[in-house]
């Protein structure tokens, strides 16, 4: 975290106004003692933000993130967050977040489902403006008639926004991803917004055991002067950036400038890999890599798949599992490698579209190995037995029944 010593940034080892010690991220994540707590996902969001040196947070009510964004307000009232407000709509909220980040603040917000889509125009703008805002998406249904239930369809809309997208499986991931997300997103060579995704209700409203870093330690403050683009605070010379605004010109230079910037945003996503691999211990996690039948997914679908793997193991059948932690950058090579020996690949998902199956098919060879399912949607749960049944049915259709009971 070089650069904090200059520019008047609070130094590592010093205390913030709440008496929390500013701590080197690696030390905080990997060396400091962790204490166990039994918390809801919403409470986990609060605990992570308390340790994140957040300057500005904007809230707006929408199920299932309302509790979390209210709890961040409590942090503000207690002096742990610089400023906090309720916006007037998600479109405005994400504009307010943009303004805060343009002004050099570390910004945190949360939204879900229809809120994500209401705000949508802002996300590619954040990425193009290189604003390292963190938003927690507690994903829920976006269909009509109205649904507030868990559903991961909204992630499909987010895939090409130019944002980093990490998908938490459980409360522990959520805690770690919120803190580690800032460290990766704010790297000068990355400097992009990050969406930390968790499944609404399944993670936000259930209690889970979480190992938390010490309450009196925080990650270092955001240093806006390490940004690859100018911080809009009039503390640096206001160079006239363009002699001729290319934005509305119909000429080759204009097209080329826009095209190269879009490529640069995508290249920045790729450059986040090395930082992410180090902090998350890889972009994927693999169980039983030599199994012929592999399950692969992200979020709580992974937890359900773990149970399905256990049910198969009880029957004496070896099934493998790949957990995808980062959807952007998509771990294409890692997935290819993990699935190279698989004969049958199943992608359990909590949405009607099967977008994760499409992502996987697009990066592996012999994509006919992929079965896009099982799917549940609209708030339905996915008991592990459903995954087992789907695998058995599909394999029977493929004439591979012996794999199950052999």
């Amino acid at each position: 975290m070089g650069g904090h010593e200059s520019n008047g940034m609070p130094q590592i080892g010093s205390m913030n106004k709440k008496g929390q010690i500013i701590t080197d991220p690696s030390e905080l994540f990997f060396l400091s003692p962790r204490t166990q707590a039994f918390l809801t996902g919403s409470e986990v969001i609060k605990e992570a933000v308390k340790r994140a040196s957040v300057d500005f947070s904007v809230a707006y009510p929408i199920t299932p993130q309302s509790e979390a964004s209210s709890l961040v307000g409590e942090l503000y009232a207690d002096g742990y967050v610089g400023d906090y407000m309720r916006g007037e709509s998600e479109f405005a909220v994400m504009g307010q977040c943009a303004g805060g980040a343009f002004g050099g603040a570390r910004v945190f917000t949360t939204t879900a489902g229809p809120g994500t889509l209401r705000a949508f125009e802002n996300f590619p703008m954040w990425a193009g403006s290189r604003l390292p805002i963190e938003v927690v998406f507690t994903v829920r249904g976006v269909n009509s008639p109205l649904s507030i239930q868990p559903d991961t369809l909204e992630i499909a809309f987010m895939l090409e926004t130019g944002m980093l997208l990490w998908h938490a499986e459980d409360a522990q991931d959520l805690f770690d991803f919120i803190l580690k997300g800032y460290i990766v997103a704010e790297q000068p060579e990355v400097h992009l917004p990050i969406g930390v995704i968790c499944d609404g209700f399944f993670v936000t409203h259930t209690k889970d055991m979480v190992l938390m870093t010490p309450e009196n330690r925080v990650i270092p403050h955001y240093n806006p002067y390490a940004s690859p683009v100018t911080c809009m605070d009039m503390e640096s010379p206001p160079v006239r950036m363009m002699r001729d605004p290319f934005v509305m010109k119909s000429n080759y230079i204009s097209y080329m400038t826009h095209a190269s910037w879009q490529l640069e945003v995508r290249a920045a996503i790729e450059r986040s890999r090395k930082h992410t691999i180090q902090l998350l211990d890889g972009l994927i996690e693999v169980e039983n890599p030599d199994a012929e039948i592999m399950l692969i997914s992200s979020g709580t679908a992974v937890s359900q798949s773990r149970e399905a793997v256990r049910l198969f193991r009880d029957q004496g059948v070896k099934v493998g599992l790949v957990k995808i932690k980062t959807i952007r950058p998509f771990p294409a090579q890692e997935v290819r490698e993990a699935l190279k020996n698989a004969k049958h690949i199943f992608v359990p998902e909590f949405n009607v579209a099967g977008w994760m199956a499409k992502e996987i098919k697009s990066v592996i060879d012999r994509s006919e190995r992929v079965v896009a399912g099982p799917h549940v949607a609209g708030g339905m749960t996915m008991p592990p037995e459903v995954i087992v049944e789907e695998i058995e049915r599909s394999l029977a259709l493929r004439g591979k029944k012996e794999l199950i009971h052999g």
Partner: protein
Amino acid sequence: MGREKIQINEEFWDIMPDDYKDLVNHSTYGKTDRGWKDVGSSTELIAEHSLCAGCPESIAFRHIMASMPSPEDTVMVGSTGCTSLVFPMVAVHNIHSLFGNQNAVATGLKRALNVRFPNKNKDVIVLAGDGATVDIGLDMTLQSWFRGERFTTICFDNELYANTGGQESGLMQKGFVAKMAPVGKKFEKVRLPEIARESGCAYVAVLTTSKPSLVERVVRQAVLIAREIGPTYLQIYTPCILEIGKQSMEGLQEMRDAEAAGERFKFREFITPEAQAFIDDMAAKKKAEKLASAAN
């Protein structure tokens, strides 16, 4: 930001662009009595622009830039439209993000600057067209006033969507025939100045840019009141000569006609008693200083 931050390392003088050298040598950064009279004699904060010849918006831009009390600590927020052709060449930090969200962006920006510079005045000024301010962005314009956000909103009112080719807007006059109003606009010009007053603005003014001294007074007042008291709103007529069928040299007369007695841009202002007391107090202090320096 102090003047020292724009200084050029001696080694680099020969390779710096002329307009940057001008900024260092002749800018009005830090000059407490800067104003429209500096235009032409010191480096202006807007040099070239690619607006149409004779566009009143470019004149308004120049007068506003010359009148801001502390450009060295001012950040501007724009929106999509003709102004976004000018902002890239303005010598204060400025943000373009989306069409219509300018007052939301300014809200976050002002709050971030307050958190980061608690002991410094950092002024935020929104400058957007009437489509951005009144139509697509009305919700965020009003909500920022309801919340009492401490920044100035300036609307360049040309009574239509100019950059997209002359479509009907909420600030267009009733009956005007335009694109998307093929048989004439069917409802009255939105009364945003009155709405601003009722929405919590501490200072509101309606004017044209025909008189630079007036622009200077209201801009200075609006920024200082926003700094200390609450939100402020200026609505400035900047006719789109192209779309109303005028010649390049006819913009000034168009503004003069529109600000005549009984016309829609006749100068009017509203100020809360609290803001007035603040302005009076400032004037009294300035007078006392003058007397004191004269006595010495």
